[in-house]
């Protein structure tokens, strides 16, 4: 079973990399970009076959390691 985790900086936490991307896109002539946020995608391949158990397990991974919940939020998709 595959799982995909998206990790993003929480709303309100300044994302200097997102700002730099926004600025660079503006320099390339892409107008009207109101905000850019950069995050991470982490793909996991799991031996688990039960979807609910896999999701519970991946959430625990996010809480312990994959995201720093002081500054980041995450979402888990079981694919």
């Amino acid at each position: 079973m595959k799982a995909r985790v998206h990790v993003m900086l929480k709303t309100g936490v300044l994302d200097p990399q997102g700002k730099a991307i926004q600025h660079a896109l503006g320099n390339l002539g892409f107008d009207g970009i109101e905000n850019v946020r950069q995050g991470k995608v982490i793909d996991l391949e799991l031996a688990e076959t039960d979807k609910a158990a896999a999701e519970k397990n991946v959430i625990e991974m996010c809480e312990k390691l994959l995201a720093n919940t002081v500054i980041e939020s995450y979402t888990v998709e079981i694919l």
Partner: protein
Amino acid sequence: MKVGVVVFPGSNCDRDLIVGFERAGAEVTKIWHKDTSLPDGLDMIGVPGGFSFGDYLRCGAIAAQSPICRSIVDHAGKGGYVFGVCNGFQILTETGLLPGALLRNTNLKYICKTVGLKVENADTAFTSGYNQDQEIMIPIAHHDGNYTADADTVARLQGDGRVAFTYTDNPNGSVADIAGILSDNGRVLGMMPHPERASDTGHGGEDGQALFDSLIGQLAQA
């Protein structure tokens, strides 16, 4: 006075930190990150700067989950002293021993230069070698030193005297100019600037050595 300095793959300030402690009179042992327990009788643990585990995932995140870090958390829980510099500070926030987190510098640049710090609280084991509000010159060398925490946490740190150092001219965007913070019992200090890189005239400055001297002096008396 026994100090252990933890070495992770990618640590690069471990020797400097050891020299700082030794010059202050401590007996220092290196601790490899794969060790699961600490040597007996340590008074203080130093977590050095560098790029532990290549800064993969987030700075300090992988190191914070290593077995030795669980022992460091236990050591702090029992009232032991811990000192984290730069990547060591990032690791201590990732373990939860210190609140907040270190984000990418707002200018997105790796900044390597000597900066001014103000001693915000000289009444701690780490800072008693300085005068209150003294300005000292200490080098920084980091890409992710932009300290952040929610407004309540920052107010609590400030109100409880847990901000040890602030930048006199904020180089990295840290909230409230914070350069170093203490745990609630004052025995865990994390700071981005490198006092161990300002502890010899050959470094161009010795403002950092007072931190090691006062710390070891105080612990030796205790």
